[in-house]
């Protein structure tokens, strides 16, 4: 989409803007927040936001937009912040991104818009994520449902399977084109991984609820407690419920384990279970909430893995009172897939990083409870298929760490429920759904898919990108009838 040129009201010459420092995100002090589940980042004030917005170089060909998976018109919305018209800035973002309060918090901007920002060459990039968060929060505080303009109805019905980032994005785009949109969610809350996977201190549930409420006001229908494939099949959605197209965004699937001895011990969790207990089920508020969690207070806790999920889990452990919390990662810190900001936050909060190490076996107390892990040190060898240097075990380097809780955050495999209950839906060798990279079309007419169920575990913004492409593919299919 071409960027609409707008006239800038920024009075500062470009060569001065380059010298302006990036405005820091106010945050809770590390030693306070590591005991609380309340949000770490506190958000820009209007003044800070405007100060930061003034740094934008207003490039003629903005690389930030080009590198954004959903194509947010960064320059335009930042100029509207400079103008002080925050609601217009929010509306500008919303043209391309229906979940700005969420991406403003969890998107790895350094890999996308901010990584592409020209200011990087001279210092620090524009705080695009922080600015996005600011306008989205401002919009939520000043949200007026009567301002929503609904598109004339097309008479077409679309089912969205899964209410995670890809599903919500597709739903938002499709409802804005006038289609009737129903979102089916297996769990009891809307949001998918945003709700069960990402902790409160990074993405408060209230924010998700408010974003979902905005989508409800836009006309999206939500139905919880529906496991598509079990409660209703995709064929039934077409044949019996009158849907014209279906988007499958069921997300990452079954948690992986290492297959080492002792993984069934009490105290060994998958990251999905651990985070679901805390985030979706509020186990950290037990017994006010009924879902229990093992007692973390004063205990040694290790999370195995180096991604954002691993960091979410270990930082949650600290908040549950862990005495010592550490990451066990088999490569070095440079290869860690987690966001830099999360690593920094985790370290400030007291997380230790034991890199180049992996568990070989979990040890028990003879009564079924975890007491430790026998680990092995690694060194980096030749790059593997992922392009990262492969960890190679160092002979004779074994050591034992005492542990009460271990959380496996080493990725997921495809959940088979949709694939096995939808005849004719082609899958990859690893069981993910095959989908076209531009239209997100699957092998089944009228069925589109995107997000982790197609790519395997990725990020919120990549899933949202897929949701956008699917929405446009679905719109085209529904308006032309051509497959």
């Amino acid at each position, binding site marked *: 989409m071409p960027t609409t040129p707008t006239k800038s009201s920024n009075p500062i010459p470009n060569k001065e803007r380059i010298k302006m420092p990036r405005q820091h995100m106010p945050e809770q002090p590390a030693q306070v927040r590591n005991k609380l589940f309340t949000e770490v980042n506190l958000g820009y004030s209007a003044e800070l936001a405007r100060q930061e917005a003034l740094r934008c170089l207003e490039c003629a060909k903005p690389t930030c937009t080009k590198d954004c998976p959903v194509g947010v018109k960064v320059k335009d919305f930042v100029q509207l912040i400079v103008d002080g018209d925050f609601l217009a800035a929010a509306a500008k973002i919303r043209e391309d991104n229906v979940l700005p309060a969420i991406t403003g918090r969890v998107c790895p901007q350094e890999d996308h818009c901010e990584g592409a920002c020209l200011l990087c060459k001279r210092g620090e990039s524009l705080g695009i994520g922080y600015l996005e968060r600011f306008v989205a929060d401002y919009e939520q505080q000043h949200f007026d449902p009567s301002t929503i303009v609904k598109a004339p109805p097309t008479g077409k019905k679309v089912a969205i399977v899964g209410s995670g980032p890809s599903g919500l994005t597709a739903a938002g785009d499709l409802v804005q084109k006038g289609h009737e949109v129903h979102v089916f969610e*297996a769990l009891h809350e809307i949001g998918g991984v945003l709700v069960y996977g990402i902790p409160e201190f990074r993405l408060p549930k209230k924010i998700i609820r408010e974003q979902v409420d905005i989508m409800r006001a836009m006309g999206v229908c939500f139905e919880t407690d*529906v496991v598509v494939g079990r409660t209703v099949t995709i064929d039934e959605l077409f044949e019996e419920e009158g849907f014209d197209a279906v988007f499958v965004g069921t997300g990452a699937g079954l948690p992986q384990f290492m297959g080492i001895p002792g993984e069934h011990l009490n105290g060994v969790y998958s990251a999905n279970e651990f985070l*679901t207990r805390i985030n979706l089920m509020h186990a950290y508020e*037990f017994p006010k*909430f009924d879902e229990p969690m093992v007692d973390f207070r004063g205990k040694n806790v290790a999370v195995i893995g180096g991604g954002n999920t691993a960091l979410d889990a270990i930082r949650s452990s600290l908040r549950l009172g862990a005495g010592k919390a550490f990451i066990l990662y088999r490569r070095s810190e440079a290869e860690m897939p987690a966001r830099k900001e999360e690593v920094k936050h985790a370290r400030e909060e007291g997380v230790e990083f034991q890199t180049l190490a992996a568990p070989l076996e979990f040890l028990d107390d003879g009564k079924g409870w975890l007491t430790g892990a026998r680990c092995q040190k690694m060194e980096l060898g030749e790059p593997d298929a992922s392009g990262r240097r492969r960890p190679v075990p160092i002979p004779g380097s074994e050591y034992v760490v005492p542990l009460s809780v271990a959380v496996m955050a080493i990725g997921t495999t495809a959940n*088979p429920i949709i694939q096995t209950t939808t005849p004719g839906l082609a899958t990859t060798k690893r069981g993910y759904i095959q989908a076209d990279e531009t239209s997100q079309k699957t092998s089944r007419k009228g069925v589109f898919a995107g997000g982790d169920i197609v790519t395997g575990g990725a990020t919120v913004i990549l899933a949202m990108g897929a949701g956008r492409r699917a929405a446009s593919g679905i719109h085209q299919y529904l308006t032309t009838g051509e497959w």
Partner: protein
Amino acid sequence: MFKIVNAQFIAPGIKRFTIEAPRIARKQRPGQFVIIRINEKGERIPLTIERSDPEKGTVNIVVQSIGKTTNLLNSLETGDSILDIVGPLGKPSEVRNFGTVVVIGGGVGTAMAYPTAAAMKNAGNRVITIIGGRNKDLVILEDDMRTVSDTVFVTTDDGSYGDKGLVTDKLRQLIDNGTRIDEVLAVGPIPMMRAVADLTRKEKIHTMVSLNPIMIDGTGMCGGCRVLVEGKSEFACVDGPEFDAHRVDFAILVQRNAMYRDAEKRSFEEYKHECELEKQKAAAQAEPVVIGAREGK
């Protein structure tokens, strides 16, 4: 919200609920289960589907009061609602004509065994049912089982009804009498299922058990319900809940199900305490109001 259209105790501490859940009622197959959540602060627990009525759009669940959630659920009455019910989950039972099938239900497990017994009968099997209970009162669904079985045996631990002894004693007797058994399904407490597995393993009779590990989402996402099946991790919610009894590591299942015992105890104690306070409050309110004691309302 899902409305309870009928709620009745069928044995001491065991209640049958009929819940309006049209989507689930349409799709339920024998062997499948649901997950329920009573209220905003509630945990998610898996429960047996005893039967469903697709026309009326209702499913029946049978619940035994054990901890906080089951006690709270069993305090609900006709006309009340629960916040969430999701399903049908898990793979349906494998139903075909095996020949002679022995269906064993222990305690509240009989409710889960019942729809499979009925389906086995429909598939042309000779169905021999063994229902076990601690005592006469805890033998449930006997009449229902009789309508779908060729023969029904009842055993009680204390001999207050049927034969005194365990379901495995009866199974042993059947085998010793030379009864040809092609398939066994056992649903009940873990020690019972394990004992059945030990017996039929020796006799080389294929046996399925329906497992009840700790579970949260029920769709394969969390992995909390993993069971060790011949040394391999399988998820009861997507790969089960029924597994080949001879391949299941029951010791691990027992150990993992005990993971939250302390928390469960604490939850239940606090619940009982709250109930007691409620009762006292209700009693106090029922007492005649002393004039002047409540000035200005």
